[in-house]
Structures are given as structure tokens and as C-alpha cells.
């Protein structure tokens, strides 16, 4: 028993011993662990410390985030004219939204809202507010006065969100160039503004860029000139009973467009929705100067003549046989009156003889004329910075045979926009080099492209155009003492239903250059279906319709452009 006990004791002792051994061993272990914990704490505290210092020094994450988002929405860049006058800007207003479930007296709210916003029906607000949805938009924009009225309803659940709205302070002026905007994605704290047409759409990315909000888009337009031209054009269209019209004023040496007008026009602050389906040209948002493709008639005659002069095939005094009518490819080409058996090249332009022009074009040959039209930019879209430009392709004959060359020489069978015409005339009178039309203000007053004709030919063209005004088809108008050159054109409109041309409906065009000595400005005015009934007879010819309007524009606009001080 004792032995047993002893044995037990012994065992116990050994156990103790073992434990003792274990204890000393684990004591060393604890020291190591303490050290580990110390290191861990030091690391943790230094981490917290640095984090604290970092937080104190740099902006906290949350706040920085708020700043970025508040900058990101809104603040679309302003659009200004060449002198810095405001054309488009943003103002802060509010939007109205609701949490329908929070509204206590829905019936009252619906009635009051319908009273405050008379343009919306009672049913509209009923549909919006009697719903299970937790959130509904009520108005994209509301005025401060309307906001006060909504506040006065005194019901919960109606909320205002800040919002920027695009405004065009000049109203209808330059409406087609500016285009318009709409709201993109909407949030309670703002909405994205997107361009829908014109420069607003073309430069949408640049205007809407959230990072540099300080820039602006400076157009080449001059808002004073633009307003004046629009006024004169509108009065003229009214006087002539025309369906519409357009005017393009361009600096021939830089391609900058000073004014681009089209009638009927619209207010970009309330842009009409879409083009009319059946007849897009009668819609106010249709830009006649850019989208309107017309056969412009006799204004083209200067092109083959310029090329013939350039190639030394003729000079201004060369006699041209104008006995007619000409028969080419089954088509009769005649003049609108009998000018005698022959005219000089100069007289062909001054009197606007179709037969004479065709005979000159025949000397040039189809491929040369086509190449020249291409150089003048009459066969392709322009690169004008408007969203509409891309969609507007001039129409020209697919194959240039004898007939096509003949009709193209006097502006038939080839349809271009007034902008195309302004560009082509600019190239002829600016000393003979190609220009790109632009709506953005340029740094330099002269930007030379590829040479189209020589400087000498350019001078001859200017003198021909000048004679049209002094003794030809445009001689009856008063240009306010300015020396002007130009060429008229009256073209019958094609009849889309019957084919062929209308007899009574014409497009009248006057392409003019002033002052003729320098050829600095090109003005192209077109009228759609004008009729001058002011005298005892009625006239549709350009000389009685579009020329007097152009003359008024030049006599009023040229002084604004600073022309006239160089008077001899």
C-alpha cells in the first residue's frame, strides 16, 4: 500500500517536476510573446498616428468626394461671339420632384400643382402622384416664383433639386448656329446638359467637359451683324412673300463666318422638337444656309469663266458665239432673252448668257470642269462645325458628259448649299486659294489653303463681278456707296412630284463680294419663292428680289465691319 503510495508520491513529484520544467520553459515563451505584442502595439499605434497626421493634413476622403460631384454636374461652358458677347450661358434654377408616399393630402397637392403649372393637365399630376413609386419627377425646371408657390402648398413630400439650365439671352438670334440642348441623365442634385443640334451638339464634348470649366467657346459670329442681317432678311422675306431665305457672310481670307442666318427661325430656349416629316425645309429648325441643297443657277457661271481665264483659253475680251438655242443630249439650252450673235466673255457674265457659258465650258472640257468644282469644294460636304453639316452632301452628276458639263456650267443639275457657294466665291476673290469655312474665331486673319486660281485670275474675276453690279443684272440697287461685285442667279425649283421644274417657283440668289478692291467679305443671300409685287408688274428675278435685300445688308453691315474709313 505504502509502496503504492510512495510510488504515487513519486509519480506526483515527477509530475511536479515535469510541470516545473514546463513552467520555466513557458516563462521564456511568455517573454517572447510579450515582445511580439509590444511590436504589434507599436505598429498599430504608429499606423494610427500616421493615419491621424495624414487625415489632419490632407482633405478627408468623404469631403473631397462631395466637392468632385458638385463640380461634375452642370457648368457647361459658355458660348460667346467673336467680341466676347454672351450667346449661351447657364443659370441656376430648381427642379421639382416628389416622394408621393409622404404627401398627406394628395388631392389638394394635385389641384394646386395643376394651378401653378397651367401648361400641364390635372391628369398628368394625378398619374404622377397616385402611385406606389417612392420617387417621381414632376418638373425638369421651375422658376423661382413657381418654387414659392409650390412651397406655399405647405405639404410634405415635395422637394426641389438644384439644377442648371442653358439659356440663350439673345432669343432667336443665331438660333440655327447655336442649336439647342436637352437634359441627359437627371439626378436630384443636378442634371447633365446635352447639345441637340448646331454647335451645341458638334462641340458637346468640349462644352460639357467637367475638368476645365473656365474655358469658353468663342465663335466667329458677330452678334450685332447677325442681328442686323436677320432683321433685314426677315423684313425682305415678308416684303417679297417668300417661303424662307438664308444669308451667309464670310471672311474670304480666313473662312470665318461672321453671320449665318436662315428663315424661318426658332427660339433655342424652346427648341421645336423635330423636323416635319413630309417637308423638312418648311420646319423652323431646318438650316437653309447649311442643310438646304439647291440648284442655284447663274451664280455658277463665274466658275467656268474663271477656269477658262486661268487656263488662258479665253481672255475677258474674247468673243463668244451665243447663237442658239443649243441642243445637247436632247436638251435645249437657251437664254432668257436675245443678246445678239456674239458677246465678249465679260458680257456673258454681265448679261448672264447661258449659251455663252456653255460654249466656254465646252472649251474647258468635262474632266477639267469637274476637277475645278471639286477644288472649289462644291462636290463634297464642308467641314463647318455644325452637327447638320455631316448629313448634307451636295448633289452632283455621277458621270460628267457633255450635257452634265453644260448644265453644271450655269448651275443646274448640281445642287449645293449657300455655304458651299460662299466658300467657292471666297476662293475666287481672296487671291485664289482655298479656305475652310469655320464658325470658330481664328487667330489669323488669313489662312491660305491649296491654290485654286492665280492671283491674276482672281483680280479678273473681281473686275467681272464688279461689272455685274455697275452695269449688269444687279445695277439698280444702292449699296450705300460701297464698291461691290456679285452675280445673280434665279433658278426654277425642281418639282418633286411631276419631275422637271416649276415655272413659277424660283430660288433667287445673289452672291456678292465687298469691298471689291480687297475682296474681304463674301455675302450669299438666297430667297425661296420670292415675288416682288411692289410695282405694277410682279418679278421673280434675283435683280428685283434678292439684290435689293443684299444691297441693304451691305450698306448697313459694311460700316459695322469698319469698312469705309479707307475712302479715297
Amino acid at each position: 500500500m505504502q509502496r503504492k503510495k510512495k510510488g504515487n508520491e513519486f509519480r506526483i513529484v515527477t509530475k511536479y517536476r515535469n510541470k516545473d520544467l514546463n513552467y520555466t520553459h513557458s516563462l521564456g515563451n511568455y517573454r517572447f510573446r510579450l515582445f511580439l505584442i509590444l511590436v504589434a502595439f507599436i505598429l498599430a499605434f504608429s499606423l494610427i498616428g500616421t493615419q491621424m497626421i495624414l487625415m489632419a493634413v490632407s482633405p478627408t476622403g468623404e469631403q473631397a468626394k462631395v466637392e468632385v460631384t458638385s463640380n461634375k454636374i452642370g457648368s457647361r461652358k459658355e458660348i460667346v461671339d467673336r467680341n466676347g458677347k454672351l450667346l449661351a450661358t447657364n443659370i441656376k434654377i430648381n427642379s421639382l420632384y416628389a416622394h408621393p408616399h409622404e404627401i398627406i393630402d394628395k388631392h389638394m397637392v394635385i389641384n394646386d400643382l395643376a394651378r401653378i403649372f397651367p401648361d400641364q393637365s390635372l391628369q398628368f399630376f394625378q398619374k404622377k402622384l397616385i402611385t406606389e413609386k417612392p420617387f417621381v419627377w414632376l418638373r425638369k425646371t421651375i422658376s423661382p416664383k413657381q418654387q414659392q408657390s409650390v412651397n406655399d402648398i405647405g405639404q410634405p413630400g415635395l422637394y426641389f433639386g438644384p439644377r442648371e439650365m442653358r439659356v440663350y439671352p439673345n432669343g432667336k438670334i443665331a438660333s440655327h448656329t447655336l442649336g439647342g440642348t436637352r437634359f441627359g441623365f437627371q439626378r436630384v442634385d443636378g442634371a447633365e446638359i446635352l447639345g441637340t443640334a448646331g454647335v451645341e451638339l458638334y462641340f458637346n464634348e468640349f462644352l460639357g467637359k467637367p475638368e476645365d470649366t473656365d474655358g469658353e467657346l468663342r465663335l466667329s459670329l458677330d452678334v450685332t451683324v447677325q442681328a442686323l442681317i436677320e432683321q433685314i432678311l426677315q423684313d425682305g422675306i415678308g416684303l417679297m412673300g417668300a417661303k424662307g431665305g438664308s444669308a451667309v457672310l464670310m471672311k474670304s481670307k480666313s473662312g470665318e463666318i461672321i453671320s449665318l442666318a436662315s428663315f424661318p427661325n426658332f427660339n433655342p430656349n424652346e427648341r421645336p422638337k423635330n423636323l416635319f416629316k413630309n417637308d423638312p425645309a418648311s420646319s423652323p429648325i431646318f438650316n437653309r444656309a447649311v442643310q438646304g441643297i439647291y440648284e442655284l443657277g447663274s451664280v455658277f457661271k463665274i466658275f467656268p469663266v474663271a477656269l477658262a481665264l486661268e487656263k488662258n483659253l479665253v481672255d475677258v475680251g474674247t468673243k463668244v458665239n451665243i447663237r442658239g438655242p443649243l441642243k445637247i443630249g436632247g436638251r435645249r439650252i437657251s437664254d432668257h432673252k436675245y443678246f445678239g450673235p456674239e458677246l465678249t466673255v465679260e458680257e456673258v457674265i454681265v448679261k448672264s448668257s447661258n449659251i455663252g457659258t456653255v460654249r466656254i465650258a465646252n472649251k474647258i472640257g468635262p474632266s477639267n470642269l469637274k476637277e475645278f468644282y471639286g477644288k472649289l469644294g462644291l462636290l463634297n460636304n464642308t467641314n463647318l462645325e455644325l452637327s447638320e453639316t455631316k448629313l448634307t452632301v451636295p448633289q452632283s452628276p455621277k458621270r460628267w458628259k457633255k450635257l452634265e458639263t453644260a448644265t453644271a456650267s450655269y448651275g443646274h443639275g448640281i445642287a449645293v448649299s449657300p455655304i458651299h457657294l460662299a466658300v467657292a466665291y471666297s476662293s475666287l476673290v481672296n487671291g485664289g486659294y482655298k479656305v475652310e469655312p469655320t464658325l470658330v474665331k481664328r487667330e489669323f486673319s488669313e489662312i491660305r489653303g491649296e491654290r485654286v486660281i492665280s492671283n491674276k485670275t482672281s483680280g479678273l474675276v473681281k473686275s467681272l463681278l464688279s461689272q455685274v453690279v455697275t452695269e449688269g443684272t444687279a445695277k439698280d440697287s444702292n449699296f450705300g456707296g460701297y464698291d461691290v461685285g456679285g452675280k445673280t442667279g434665279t433658278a426654277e425649283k425642281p418639282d418633286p412630284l411631276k419631275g422637271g421644274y416649276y415655272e413659277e417657283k424660283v430660288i433667287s440668289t445673289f452672291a456678292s463680294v465687298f469691298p471689291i478692291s480687297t475682296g474681304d467679305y463674301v455675302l450669299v443671300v438666297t430667297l425661296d419663292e420670292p415675288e416682288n409685287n411692289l410695282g405694277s408688274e410682279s418679278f421673280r428675278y434675283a435683280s428685283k428680289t434678292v439684290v435689293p435685300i443684299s444691297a441693304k445688308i451691305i450698306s448697313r453691315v459694311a460700316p459695322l465691319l469698319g469698312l469705309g474709313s479707307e475712302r479715297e
Partner: protein
Amino acid sequence: MRVMFQLMLFISCLLSAVWAYQVNYEARAIKREIQDLDNKIQSVKNRINLLEAEWAFLNRPKRLARLVDENFSTLRLVPITRDHFKDSITLELIDAKKKERE
């Protein structure tokens, strides 16, 4: 010695903690102030923007043309024409004539 060292470490640790907290809160206060100022700047900018838009609206060519017409009796403003441009010699002659009359 060892105790002193540890005490000093402890105190400096405490002090730096207090300092860090203070700096942190000061920085936050400044941050808030900057935010307030930014907001103020933004609202002033908005106001300038609004006034500029209003100015452009009031100076729109149509309104100016109407005002010129309405106030013709006092202002006698007429459209500028080529004849309004005179060279310096003519201007001197006109000046001389005026002086003669006086």
C-alpha cells in the same frame, strides 16, 4: 533611470497624441472654413453669372433697337453709314469751322 526614460517616453507619447488631435481638429476647422469660402465664392460666381446673363438679355440687339427707336427724340441715333467715316484732315476742318463759329 529606466523608469525615468519610460516615463519620458510615455509623456512624449501623450503630448504627441494631444498635438496630433489638435492639429487634426484645427485642420478640419480650416477645411470647413475653406469649404464655406468655396461655397461663398461659388454663390458669388453664380450671381455674377446670372447678372451677366441678365445683362446680355437686357442688351439683346432687338431690345436695343427698340429703345433707340423709342428714344429717337432725345438720342437721335441713326444707323451708321459710310458717310460717318471721315479722314483726319476732314475732321480737323470740321473742328476748325466749329471754333470759328464760337
